[in-house]
């Protein structure tokens, strides 16, 4: 921090100064090296003719390194949020880092509320969070839109003025026809410049001081929720190709990407004075019912308690509790029977799908923001955007019912529209729901949960909007 001169702005929390914004990013490959919150160890390959290798394997067999510390996290079921809450900071960090379980209750995904709050109150020890980066980007976009609105308005006035001139003089002052396209900013700007150089009216002198390379939103980063601003994309390419008539010494400022980076640096410029604030943690890691059940039943690293009791719930108790709380308002107590289970319930249908994709290695998150049931991430949300949006459709072929989703075309169409905007493929996941007879006696069987889940059959159909004019190859 000491070498930070007037011009170079070093980010707080990153003491290896003059750094490019790229190196600010933590190494997610190391942080999220484990895909599950379990300790795995690798035995070297067994070489039968090498006695040392055999001894090594025998040693590992008798003294497996994980026996000593099997990790068990504790979560508490909350009837208010209808989910499982984890509050121990160590467990929260572990569950997030090893497999992206849960969501910070006051954050977008990773629990960062405490950090954000500390930064907001001026604490210098913590680094920037992803929410702040998004906020900056959105603010920039807002500014850009404001600027665009201003330009449009000016252009309109300009045209009106020119028309008035025409009416007075009787003849056109410039041969160029005036085209008003409210959508394309850059066309407006070019027009503006053309008009200015041709007519050179003394009207509003401040107009020319507006830089041509207006900061457009950074295009390298796609904002998940908004998708690529296609309008901005076209305008950038035009900015670069457009006439640079009033290029000042600050020529590189015309490259939109660089303008953005510069902005990011100036905003993070801070006086390096140590400041500590104490904030009470208000956030917890919230596991959905499916996540909690998977961690308890399939991975076996989570114990779930209820309010007023520290005794962890058994799997069958958990199942009953979760089935009751998978609809709103929740079903009353003792309305769900485990021995005479009705397989057509929201929790089991959702869980079957969750278990299916988690077992295949996808990181599964709720997709309410994209109007789907689940989002599928390859490796995890910090590495890539979600590739697929999953719509769960229960199918009752075994119930002797007619296959009818009960939805209209426009329902599906709007969902594919939303998801193609953010470059996701919609997966229709049909869950073949067993009848009560199919699963009868599951609770008396050995490993009955497995037998129960096996009755749910899953079919996937990938859906994508096809635009004949665009996808010719």
């Amino acid at each position, binding site marked *: 921090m000491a070498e930070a001169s007037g011009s170079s702005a070093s980010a707080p929390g990153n003491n290896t100064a003059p750094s490019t914004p790229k190196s600010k990013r933590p190494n997610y490959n190391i942080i999220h090296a484990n895909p599950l919150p379990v300790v795995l160890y690798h035995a070297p390959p067994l070489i039968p003719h090498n006695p040392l290798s055999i001894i090594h394997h025998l040693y590992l067999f008798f003294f497996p390194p994980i026996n000593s510390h099997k990790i068990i996290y504790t979560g508490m079921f909350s009837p208010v949020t209808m989910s499982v809450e984890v509050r121990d900071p160590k467990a929260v960090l572990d569950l997030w880092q090893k497999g992206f379980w849960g*969501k910070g209750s006051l954050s977008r995904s990773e629990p960062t509320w405490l950090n954000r709050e500390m930064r907001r109150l001026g604490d210098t020890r913590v680094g920037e969070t992803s929410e702040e980066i998004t906020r900056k980007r959105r603010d920039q976009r807002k500014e850009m839109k404001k600027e665009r609105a*201003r330009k449009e308005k000016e252009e309109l006035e300009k045209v009106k003025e020119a028309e008035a001139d025409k009416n007075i003089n009787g003849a056109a002052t410039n041969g160029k026809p005036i085209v008003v396209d409210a959508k394309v900013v850059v066309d407006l700007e070019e027009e503006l410049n053309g008009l200015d150089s041709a007519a050179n009216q003394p009207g509003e002198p401040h107009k020319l001081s507006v830089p041509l390379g207006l900061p457009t939103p950074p295009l390298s980063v796609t904002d998940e929720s908004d998708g690529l601003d296609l309008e901005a994309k076209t305008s950038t390419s035009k900015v670069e190709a457009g006439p640079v008539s009033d290029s000042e010494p600050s020529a590189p400022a015309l490259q939109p990407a660089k303008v953005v980076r510069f902005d990011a640096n100036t905003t993070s410029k801070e006086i390096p004075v140590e400041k500590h604030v104490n904030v009470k943690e208000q956030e917890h890691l919230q596991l959905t019912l499916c996540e909690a059940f998977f961690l308890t039943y399939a991975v076996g690293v989570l114990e779930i308690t209820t309010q007023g009791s520290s005794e962890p719930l058994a799997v069958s108790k958990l199942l009953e509790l979760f089935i009751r709380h998978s609809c709103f308002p929740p079903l009353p107590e003792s309305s769900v029977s485990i021995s005479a289970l009705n397989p057509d319930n929201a929790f089991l249908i959702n869980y079957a799908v969750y278990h299916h994709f988690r077992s295949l290695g996808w990181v599964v*998150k*709720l997709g*309410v*923001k994209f109007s789907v049931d689940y989002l599928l991430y390859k490796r995890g949300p910090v590495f890539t955007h979600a590739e697929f949006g999953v719509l769960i459709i229960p199918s009752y072929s075994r119930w002797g019912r007619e296959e009818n989703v009960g939805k209209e075309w426009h329902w599906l169409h709007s969902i594919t529209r939303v998801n193609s905007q953010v470059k996701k493929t919609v997966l229709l996941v049909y869950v073949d729901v067993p009848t009560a007879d199919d699963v009868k006696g599951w609770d008396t069987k050995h490993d009955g949960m497995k037998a129960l889940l096996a009755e749910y059959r899953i079919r996937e159909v990938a859906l994508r909007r096809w635009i004949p004019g665009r996808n010719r190859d």
Partner: protein
Amino acid sequence: MATADGASHLLGLRSIVRSNLEYQHYWTDLRLLNTFADLNINAQGDPLTRPMIHGRPPDQLYNPEPASTTESSSQQKPTPEMEYVLPVHLDEKLTLRTWAAVFDALPTPPGDNYRKKRIVVAVISGDSTVVYYIMHDGIVKPRQN
């Protein structure tokens, strides 16, 4: 309309939204609305169809005509309007009747009479995501840009 048990879950939803508004989105002047008397001092103390929240967002939520850009940039922003927030759960089945009852309870917005009543619907899902929608009681002028 709601049973005692259902009402307690609606209160649970509201506590989630309240903390979300306060801690994640920095709303201020948050007030819980339980009865008609909370909306209008002269009204009877009958309970509202659904518990709601009244609060002030950090920025104006919906404004079809943004303040003219020439003057707003440097000058102080006007105070954002107070908003009514209705917490709902993602798995709920809501009917037109519910919406109508919610809007009927709200006071008419002051000023020009083409302003529609407005609520912010806070949709809660199981992973603690709260998705907010702005809902008007009728057609309004669309937002620019």
